[in-house]
Structures are given as structure tokens and as C-alpha cells.
């Protein structure tokens, strides 16, 4: 794909790609998380978002650190281990015109944060939730996370005795409205899925296999680069098309094409590969994930989407003003209101 190259000049909003950069990474060289951070930069640049209109959230872990390594011009809150979802659930009410991007790790999401993750998804808070999934605790130096496969061997830890938690299946079970899986070794797909996720009006869960080169990159490990490369089974080729762009079917010479129109008018275009897969069918999604588990497939692509599921914001009749800009006068009821209240207690 040439898109990245083609656009290396200011985007429609006048921002250069460099306006989306973060600080230099302090993660290990070759860490999957770095390549995801790069793709977030590219996706935001290509989507022509204003950096100040994005808010970043994260928990604790190498993955969660990486919010510092993209979008330096965006607000960010690096919260507590496993408890980023609740932060976002509070903060994003303050200004609904902002887009939230949350970065978590597999330990952060599937161990200590499982409950907050699932309840976030259930509430369908509009934000992108990326799990940088390496099957291991990177920052604390190589313990098993709940997504580690049974039988994985790690230095100092021995052999993992448990079946893994499947983050995508967990998301679907919790009534997620957007669930995708990708692989840091496939940056183009990662980028297109991030773009789609950013345009989704609801919680968009991206489970991205992101190898930890320091603690879990053995060839046989299900979270390594080489295993991922050998076993990736893309459901489709994905291309994200912005509302005002034209869909150029030329990009997809061969194969049939399917489109899903998102809430904001953008379109996700799927070029079908061998498999016939409909990402708007939840029963299908559940079955596919169940199969993938049994057969050790690294299914990637958009697994499930419902562009019109009600969000948590739909449950409140809030004014369209940014809540955090409402002036004090409007927030404090007047004296008469208090008189009435006092009267009602007499």
C-alpha cells in the first residue's frame, strides 16, 4: 500500500505527520508496542484529526507507557494498573467532541483489569481500546499473563498451566459493538483497523498481538513475530474510507467487496479472502472465535461490528455543550430552587 507514502505532506487540516508524534520511545528495540504507536500516528494523520481533540488513557505496563510515544499534543492520563477504563468513563463525559484512545496490555486487561474492561465494553463508551497483547508481563520482567497459552514456558516461571483468556471473545460476550484482532507484524492492517475504530461510535476493542522481544518471542510462542507471521489468518483485507472520500474499488481488483457504513458516514471496505465472513453477525463472530481457539488460528480483521449500538452517552440527555465548559452560574440552582426544597421538607 502506498497510502502512507503518498500522504507525507500536510493533511487537509494542515498537520504534518510529525504533529502527531510523541516522545522518543524508551521501550525495547523491536517491541511490538512501538510499531503500534507508529500506526496510531499514521492513522490520526491520515484521518486528519486535530491532535488536541484526542485524549489518551492507559493503565500500567510497557504497553501503557507507550501513550507517551505518540500524540504529544494530546492530553493523556496514565492511570492505575488495570483500571484505565474507569478513568475514561469519567473523563470522556467532560467533552463529547473529543476522541479517546486507550492503550492497555494483556496483563492490564485480562488479569487485574478484566472486570473494568468488560464493564467498559458493556457500557459502550465511545473510545478506542487497544490491547497490546504479548502474553506476558513485560514491565515486571516476564511473568505469565492470562492470555499466555497453556504450555508456554518462560524463564523463572516454568510452564503455564492455564488456558488463555481470549480478549476478543470476552469483548463479544460482554456485548461489544466493535471487536477486531490484528498483529503488530502487519502494520497496514493495524492502521486501517485503528482508523475504523476511531470512527466507531462506541467502544472499539482492538486485540493486537504485539510481541515482547525481551521476554516472549520464542518461535513457538503464540505471541511471537515468527508464529504470528506463520499463522496469521486474515478474515479479509480491510480498507477504511473517510466520509468525504470516494471509494475506489480499484484498490480491490480481485475478489468481492463488502462495505459497512459507520455512524459518521465513513465506510469500512472488506475485500473477502477465501473465507466468507460477515462481521455484523454476532452469532458468527462467537462461532468464529470459538473455532479459532480450537484450531490455533490467529484470525485477524474486523470480527464484529454494530455501528448503531446505543452508547453510554445515549443513556443521558446531556446538553450538547461541553460539560466541562459550562459556567458556574448554570451549575448552581438559584435561591428559589432552594426555597422550594426547604419548603418540601417542612
Amino acid at each position, binding site marked *: 500500500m502506498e497510502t502512507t507514502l503518498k500522504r507525507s505532506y500536510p493533511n487537509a487540516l494542515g498537520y504534518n505527520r510529525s504533529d502527531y508524534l510523541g516522545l522518543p520511545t524508551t521501550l525495547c528495540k523491536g517491541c511490538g508496542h512501538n510499531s503500534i504507536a507508529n500506526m496510531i500516528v499514521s492513522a490520526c494523520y491520515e484521518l486528519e484529526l486535530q491532535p*488536541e481533540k484526542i485524549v489518551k488513557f492507559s493503565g500500567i505496563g510497557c504497553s501503557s507507557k507507550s501513550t507517551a510515544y505518540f500524540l504529544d499534543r494530546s492530553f493523556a*492520563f496514565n492511570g492505575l494498573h488495570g483500571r484505565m477504563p*474507569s478513568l475514561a*468513563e469519567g473523563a470522556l463525559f467532560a467533552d463529547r467532541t473529543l476522541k479517546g484512545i486507550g492503550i492497555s496490555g494483556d496483563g492490564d486487561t485480562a488479569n487485574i483489569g478484566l472486570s473494568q474492561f468488560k464493564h467498559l465494553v458493556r457500557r459502550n463508551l465511545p473510545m478506542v481500546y487497544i490491547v497490546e497483547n504479548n502474553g506476558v508481563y513485560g514491565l515486571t520482567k516476564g511473568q505469565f499473563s492470562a492470555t499466555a497459552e497453556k504450555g508456554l514456558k518462560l524463564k523463572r516461571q516454568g510452564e503455564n498451566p492455564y488456558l488463555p483468556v481470549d480478549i476478543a471473545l470476552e469483548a463479544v460476550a460482554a456485548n461489544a459493538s466493535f471487536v477486531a484482532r490484528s498483529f503488530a507484524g502487519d502494520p497496514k492492517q493495524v492502521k486501517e483497523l485503528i482508523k475504523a475504530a476511531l470512527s466507531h461510535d462506541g467502544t472499539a476493542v482492538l486485540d493486537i498481538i504485539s510481541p515482547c522481544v525481551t521476554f516472549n518471542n520464542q518461535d513457538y510462542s503464540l505471541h511471537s513475530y515468527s508464529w504470528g507471521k506463520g499463522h496469521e489468518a486474515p478474515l479479509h483485507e480491510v480498507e477504511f474510507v473517510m466520509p468525504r472520500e470516494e471509494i475506489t474499488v480499484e484498490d480491490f481488483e480481485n475478489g468481492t467487496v463488502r462495505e459497512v457504513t459507520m455512524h459518521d458516514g465513513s465506510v469500512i471496505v472488506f475485500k473477502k479472502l477465501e473465507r466468507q465472513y460477515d462481521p455484523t453477525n454476532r452469532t458468527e463472530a462467537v462461532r468464529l472465535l470459538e473455532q479459532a481457539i480450537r484450531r490455533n488460528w490467529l484470525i485477524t480483521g474486523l470480527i464484529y461490528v454494530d455501528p448503531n449500538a446505543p452508547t453510554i452517552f445515549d443513556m443521558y440527555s446531556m446538553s450538547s455543550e461541553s*460539560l466541562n465548559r459550562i459556567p458556574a452560574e*448554570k451549575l448552581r440552582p438559584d435561591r428559589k430552587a432552594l426555597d422550594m*426544597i*426547604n419548603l418540601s421538607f417542612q
Partner: protein
Amino acid sequence: MQINDFSVTFSTINGSGSATANNTILRAISKMGVPVSARNIFPSNIQGLPTWYNLRVNAAGYKGRQEHCHILVAMNPETVAADLEKVVEGGLVLINEEILLDELPAGMKKIPMPVKMLLEASKTPTNLHIYLANMVYVGILAWLVGIDLEKIEAALQYHFDHRQSAVEPNLKVVKIAFDWAHQNLANPGDYKLAALEHAENKILVDGNTAGALGALFGGLQYAAWYPITPATGLAEALNEYIPKLRTDPQTGTTNCVVVQAEDELAAIGMVVGAGWAGLRAMTSTSGPGLCLMAEYLGLAYFAEVPIVVWDVQRVGPSTGLPTHTSQGDLTFTYFISHGDKDMIILLPGDVEECFEFGWKALDIAEQLQTPVIVLSDLELGMNIWEADPFAYPDHKMERGKVLWEKDLETLLKKSGQWGRYQDIDGDGIPYRTILGNLHEKAAYFTRGTGHDEFAHYSEENRDWEKNLQRLKKKVESAKKLVPPAEVLNEEKGRVGLIAYGSTKMSALEAVAMLNRSGRQVDFLRIKALPFTDEVETFLKTHDRIYIVEANRDGQMRQILNVNFPDYAAKLRSAARCDGLSLSAEWIVSQIEKMEG
């Protein structure tokens, strides 16, 4: 004969609807202008276990719990024997005549109530009798002590929101019982009410509702909570009043959001997120939930996020007695979360202050950019108290040092730079921007790890120390913002008594009793931590100081020891925790014992 000075205990079974009867009596007496108070003693259970309601009439306005009652209304056969032990000599016992009772202790007078007969006589629908049964004692008590039937009717109208279909049968039973008593009993006349003129119309309200209303008048914008007794009422009151107070009648849109979280870990996380994003944010909980908030409170302190946490205390440790009151969370709250930190704590002493601190807490949190914890308790929070009407906030909303686009531009023009954690004003409080601020210099990175003045990640030892020392300065700034301690009398060299929170009620009475008995005692009420200057002055000027509180370990005394080592040796503890609020009698007895 005791006029306007006696107490009544209603002994019933929970789930039997006695709350309606009890509240009706409370409201009717209040409407007579006679100062009255009451507390509910109830089990952690939904249906079928013993419950008590202790009502006190006191012309002088004292509201503390009393160890004994003058009148017992006995509706629960299970507990009547034990209940009788609490009745004073010469007391009256109104008892459902179906309860078999050997004999009353000497000196008590028994007034049997033919509940069943009167219900039948009332010709009210039988399926309602289970609820109406309690109206029998309302009627008989009204006759006995002289509660205006008119006021009872008014109270019922209030209670049932003027639904006559409900008011009528209830009132009917009350009247029938009243008439029956009038015709069949001789009124001993020992305990009587006499209507008074109140200066103002008193209100009746519980502390949880008061706190919620205070927050709503304080411009609360975001609350997240998880159900827990005795704090639940606070969040439920928010839900109840938002449509009335914070919703635009034209558009139907609201500017205050309440989220029921999946647990307290999430509730506090949500609130920290909201507070960080510039919303006035709070949560409410009790001890077990507070435990789960420890880590996020540390982050809020360190990342300087304004939030308010209400802890409506119940008896701990652990699940403890979830429906009984205590002041046992003070030291935990003061030292909550690992590492060095300082928590600002407000200690409301009555429902008026629940309202007042409800809005002030939000101001203080935003002014200091730090968590503020309001320590209420079950006693205050879940009981309905007579109070002066809530006073409209006497001060404009203080939003603290917030920089929007223009403010930031001005600051940058002036100083050339802005750092999220720079102490520009020397008060330890930095300036903050808020998300949504589109100025290209506005964004900063918030974290729980070390950082420099410009919010950049730093593990430099000097950066860490400097930052933590600046944070410590906020304690001094806080002293100027929190409600000052209240001093009642102060004369050098006398004995002092210190109380706080709901214990104020009995402490005030104890002081009066001690003074009457010839021991001159001065009184100080602490309303907040950090301690304001009055506290040190009081400690300095008194020889022996008793700290009265409803916990086992004397937790306020412990914190006073920490802060005032020079006076620590003068402090004495009168502390107790058994699930009941302290009585003035007990306080007096403790002080007399220690004074010798």
C-alpha cells in the same frame, strides 16, 4: 410531670412498615414547634428482625442519644423483656395486648393496646392491617403525650404526598385509637408535649439527602457510586433531585451525570477521570468501599486531581455492623494510600453542615486540586433530623486555578512558559489546563509516576523531593480554606472537651451537664483536617483536654498526638464503639471518672 422533655422507644419488626408511623410522629411533634429528634436502630436484614426507633423530645434542643427511655411502645414480643430494661423507673409501657408479659418491673405503668380490635373497628381493608397496625400506637401515643391530631394529619398528608387513598385509612386508625384511649384509659399525665413557637419553620431531612443537595447546589457534574449501606441514600438522592434541580425545563437536558459503577474501584476511577477532565466530581461510599478506593486516592493526591469522597461511616473493622453507626474510619482516611500524602477531611456535625460541606467540599477540592473526603456517619446520614432550612451558599463557586485557551495565552505571554506543576503563587497549588482546551501548548501528560514541574517523566531524586515538598505546602493552604473549628467558651487553664461529627450532639449536652454540676468545661468542635489555628490555641490554653468520639481507639486523639506533640500529654480519650452513638450521660460519666 415532664413537659417537652422525654423520650420514647418504639420496638417493632423490620419490613412491617413501622417507619411510616414513626416518621409521622416525628413530623407531627416537630410541627408543634417542639424540638424533637429520633434515631432508627435496625438490623442488616430486609424483613422480619427487631428494629427500634428512639424518639426524643427536648425543649432545650438537645438531640443526643439517651441511655433510657420514658415511654416504651412494645410491638415485638421477641424483644420486650430486653426493651423493658431500658425504661426509666416510673416509665410507661404501651404494649400490644397480644404480647404476653409476666409482670412489669416495679414502678412502670402498663398501657395495653388492643391493636387487633381497633383495626377491626376501623373497618379498613384487612389486607392493609399489617401496615395500619402501627397507626394504633400513633393514636394512643398522641392521646397519651398530647400530639395534635391536626399535626398528625398534616404529617400523614406529607408522608403520602397528599394521596388521600393512603392518608384516610391511616388517619382513621389513628383517630379510632386516640378515641378509644380517651374513652377507656386514665391518662397518667407524666410526659406531656406543649406546643411552642419556633422562630422559623424547621425542616426534617436526613444527612444523606442533605449532602446530595449540597453537592447539587455546589455544581456537582459527575457522580459515580456503588451501593453500600449507609451511603446508598446519598447517590439515590442525587438521582432523585437531578431532574428537579439540574435539568433544563425547556430542553430536558441535564448537566449532572450519575453512574452506578461495577464496584468501588471503578467508582473512584471514574470520579478521578471526571475530576481530571474538569468536572466537579464525587463518589459516596462506606468503610469497605473506601478500602477499595485507597490506591486511586493516592493517585488523585499525587496527580493533583480534585475529587470529593463521602464516607458515610458504619461500624468496622470489616463488614462489621453495616447498619450501625461509628466514627471508626478517621485514622484510616487520614493515612489512606501508601507513601506520604495528606488527605483533606471535612467533618459535618449536623444536616445543615452536610448541606454546607456538600458544596464547600467541591470548592475546596478544586481550589487545592486534591481529594477532599467528607466523613459523615450512619447516625447523621440515615436518620431524619430537624434542622434550620438550608442556607443558600454564601460564596460564589470557586473553580480554582484553571487555564482555558485565553488564560493560557495570557500566562504564556507573561512568563514565556507554563508548567503543570510549577508553584507560581508559592502556595503549593499549580495551574492546570483541562482536556478540550485546544491551545497547542495546553496538553500535558498526567501520571502516578515521578515528574518534573513541566509534567515530564522524571526519576530524578531532586524532582521527586521538590514535588512532594510542594505538595506538602498545600496543607498550609488548606488551613485557610477548610471550615474552622468552633469554640464554645474558652478560658485559660480549664478543662477542655473536643468532639467532632455527629458526636457533637451529645458532647454539647455533656458540656452543659458538667457545667451545671459545677465543673467548668470548655468545648471545641473540629470541623476539618488539617487542623485550623483554633485547635492549637485550644490545646495550648487548656490543662486537660478530653477527646470524645465513637470509636474504640480514640482516633482523633491519635491524630492530635501526631500533629501536636507538645500538647499530647494533656490529651485524654473518651472513646467507645458499640454501634450506638454516644450518650451525654456516658460522656459525663467518663469525664467524671477521669477527673476524679
